[in-house]
C-alpha cells in the first residue's frame, strides 16, 4: 500500500513541477550551481555532527532508558505475580485452618452434648429410682394408715360414746355392746357412702 502511495505521488509531483515552471519567470534557484558546493559542505558538517551526537550520546541513552523501564516493569509484574501466588496460598492455608477448627469445634460440641445427655439420663434414672422408692414407701405408709384407721376410728368412737354416755347418764355401759352398735353404724355409713 505504501508503495502505491509513492508511485502515485511521483506523477503528481511532476504535475506540480510543470505548473511551477509555468508560473515562474526567472528560473529555478535550485538549479543555480553557485552555492551547490557550499550546501554540500554544510550538509555534510551538520548532518555528520547530528549523526555522531545522536548515535554516540543520545540514542544509547534513550535505548537504555527504555530498557530499564521495561525491565523495571517486568520486575514489578513478576513480584506482583509472586505476591499474588503467596496470598493465594495464604488464603488456602487460612481456609484449611478455619475448616479444621470448625470440625474440631463440632467434635467438641458433640462430645460435650453426649456427655451432658448421659449425665442427665443417669441423674434422671437415679432420681426416678429415688422417687419411686419414696412413692412406694409413702404408699405403703398410706396403705398402713388406711388399714389401721377404721379400727382406730371404731375404738375412738367406742371410747367417745362410752365417755358421752357416762357424762350424760352416768351409767357404765359395757364396752362390747357399744362396740357392736358402733360397728353396726359404721357399716351402715360405709354402705351409704359406697352406695352413693
Amino acid at each position, binding site marked *: 500500500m505504501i508503495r502505491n502511495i509513492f508511485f502515485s505521488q511521483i506523477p503528481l509531483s511532476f504535475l506540480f513541477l510543470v505548473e511551477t515552471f509555468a508560473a515562474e519567470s526567472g528560473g529555478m534557484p535550485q538549479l543555480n550551481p553557485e552555492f551547490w558546493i557550499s550546501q554540500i559542505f554544510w550538509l555534510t558538517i551538520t548532518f555528520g555532527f547530528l*549523526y555522531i*551526537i545522536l548515535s554516540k550520546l543520545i540514542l544509547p541513552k534513550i535505548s537504555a532508558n527504555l530498557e530499564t523501564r521495561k525491565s523495571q516493569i517486568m520486575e514489578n509484574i513478576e513480584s506482583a505475580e509472586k505476591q499474588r501466588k503467596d496470598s493465594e496460598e495464604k488464603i488456602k492455608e487460612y481456609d484449611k485452618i478455619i475448616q479444621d477448627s470448625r470440625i474440631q469445634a463440632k467434635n467438641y460440641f458433640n462430645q460435650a452434648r453426649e456427655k451432658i445427655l448421659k449425665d442427665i439420663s443417669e441423674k434422671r434414672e437415679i432420681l426416678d429410682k429415688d422417687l419411686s422408692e419414696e412413692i412406694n414407701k409413702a404408699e405403703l405408709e398410706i396403705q398402713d394408715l388406711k388399714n389401721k384407721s377404721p379400727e382406730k376410728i371404731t375404738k375412738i368412737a367406742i371410747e367417745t360414746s362410752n365417755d358421752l354416755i357416762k357424762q350424760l347418764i352416768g351409767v357404765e355401759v359395757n364396752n362390747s355392746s357399744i362396740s357392736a352398735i358402733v360397728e353396726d353404724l359404721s357399716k351402715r355409713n360405709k354402705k351409704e357412702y359406697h352406695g352413693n
Partner: protein
Amino acid sequence: MATNPMNQFEVYRIGPEIKLGSIDLSFTNASLFMVISSIAILVIFNLGSKKNSLIPNKMQLLAELSYTFVSKMISDTAGSKAKPYFAFIFSIFMFVLFCNMFGMIPYTFTVTSHIIVTFMLAAFIFIGVTIIGFIKHGLGYLKLFVPSGVPVVLLPLIVVIEIISYLSRPISLSVRLFANMMAGHTMMKVFGGFVISLGIIGGWLPLSFSVALTGLEILVAFLQAYVFAILTCIYLNDALNLHH
C-alpha cells in the same frame, strides 16, 4: 515582499565569504537552517533522554515515542539485521522531518526544497546501501538484478530494467522529496500572492485555500520524511536480505 513565488528558494550568503581556493564554502541561509534543524533535534532529544523516570515527562515521551516509531519502522521493513543502521536512519528521518517542518514557518528557508541537498542525501544512501550489499553478499549481490522464476528469453530485458531501476533509486528518492517540498511551498506562495492581489473582497477564497494548504503541507512534510526514511529501509533490506 517579493512577488515571484520562486524567490523563497533563493540562497544568499550570510556573513563573510568563505573561500577554500576557488571553492565557495560561504555560510548561507540554507546552512543556517541546516544548523538550526540539527540543533533543535539535539536539544529536544537531549532533554528527552536526560532524566530517566519510570513515568516519562513530555519531552521524554516525545523522544521515546520517536525512538520506538523509527525502530518499529526499521524492524518491520528491514528486519533485525538492520539494527546497526538504526542511528543513521533515525538521523535521516529526524533531519528531513525537522528541515521540512522548519520550512513551514513563514519567512524561513526550506533546506529540503533544494535538489542538491536531497540528492546528496539520496546519493549517500544509495552508495552506502550498495557498499553494504557487496560487503554482505560479495558478487552475489548482483543476483539482485536477476529475479528468480523468469523465462530465460526475457532475462536480458529484465536484467536491464532491474539495473536501470536500481540506478534510478537516488534520483527518484531525491526528486520525490525536493519536488514535493518545492511544489507545496510554491503553491502556498502563489495563493498568498492571490490574497494580496484580490484584496479584501476577493481574497477570502485564496486565503481559505492557503489555510487548507498549510495543513496539507504539514502532513506532506511529515509524510515525505517518513517516505524518505522508509525507502531507505527498503533499500537497506534489499542489501541485507537478498530475496531474488
